[in-house]
């Protein structure tokens, strides 16, 4: 729907109602997602929250950012960035979630807590004295 406009004709202008409707929808979705978060669905909370957030994001992208009316290349650039982010997360998780496939002991850290917690609970003898995390004298 890219309307023809001369070099200095009136560019493509959306009616105010569209913007207000979109803003309204975003507010409603915000209220919904907050309300839903109080109900405990366990793991589903994450999925629901993300679906709502995604819809809000699509609304902002299509209307406020004009992707609906602009050259579809920009939509593909935006979608491409999200795709590459998803690939980065998924491929990293092939490792981080599947380390215990063959040996259970390999799957998790030996000392679950960082050393800053070891000083507090003296009961747990810290087997290795990890070097102080950040040596204040270290050169920058």
């Amino acid at each position, binding site marked *: 729907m890219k309307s023809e406009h001369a070099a200095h004709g009136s560019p493509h202008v959306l009616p105010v109602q569209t913007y207000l409707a979109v803003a309204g929808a975003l507010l409603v979705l915000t209220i919904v997602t907050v309300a839903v978060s109080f109900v405990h669905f366990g793991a589903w909370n994450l999925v629901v929250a993300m679906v709502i957030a995604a819809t809000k994001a699509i609304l902002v992208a299509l209307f406020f950012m004009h992707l609906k009316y602009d050259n579809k290349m920009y939509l593909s650039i935006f979608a491409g960035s999200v795709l590459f982010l998803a690939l980065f997360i998924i491929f990293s998780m092939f490792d981080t979630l599947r380390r215990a496939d063959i040996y259970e002991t*390999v799957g998790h850290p030996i000392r679950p807590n960082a050393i800053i917690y070891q000083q507090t609970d003296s009961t747990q003898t810290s087997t290795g*004295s*990890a070097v102080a995390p950040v040596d204040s004298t270290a050169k920058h």
Partner: protein
Amino acid sequence: MNDQGTFWLPPAHSTVAAETDALFYFIYWISVLLFVGVVAATLFFFIRYRRRKSPDYTINPHNNTLEITWTVIPTILVFVVFIWGFRGYINLSIAPKDALEIKVTAQKWFWSFDYPAGATTVNELVVPVGKPVKLLASSQDVIHCFYVPEFRVKRDVLPNRYTILWFEATAVGDYQIFCAEYCGTKHSEMLAKVRVVTDVEYNAWLDANANIGAGLAPEEFGAKLYTGKACVTCHSVDGKPGTGPTFLGVFGHEVQLADGSKIVVDENYVRESILQPQAKVVAGYQPVMPTFQGILKDREIDALIAYIKTLKK
């Protein structure tokens, strides 16, 4: 595949080595073929169609079948290589159930090994021949990497996490252990040996080492530990400077610490320097000394203190 090794590969002395070497040479010969093909064709065209000899070119129309062939054939080749490589990798990764388990600890810059019978060694891994050995490794400071070229095995050793590596030696002898992940100043000196012995020798060695130093006087036992536990890599006994201060004449003398305070070197100070080196750091030295907490037993610490006492100027 062989005991003397080939031009490219060192001798193969573990059960998995043969398959890795076979895949290596499979890829090697295909690569030689492809390389010679590409370079020979280029040279031939350089000579045959050089400008003086063929001032004008003749267009050769696009040929899709050629494009398809040199896409499909490489795809098949690499698929074969992938399957073969993956099969070998799985054998490398899954240790047999009855494997003998030895705990490996990597520290800046030496390896220490704890055997089931309580014996511990530093920079020397004694294993029986013909038996699968499973190493449960972790590091005390940075990432190291346990690598034995003759066994074709390698695995990073991570801080605060166990990693597992297994091998079954097929020949008695000594084999070099390298550290293959960069870990600082003495990365290239973090060397150790795998000593593969017969079953009988192994059991005899285990019993002997379960309570080593029983018969020795404390300072003699301390001297053995001084080298056995790798204090030698950083502390000299003849006054020569090293990563850590020399032990010569240190006992009973005053030492300046990094925070400026001074302290007389006595038994408690040496014990504390061994168990919590970071507690009191000697002025002018990096706090790189690892803790020996859990590695040295009290009897061994006393022996080291006795030995250090004997080192008078």
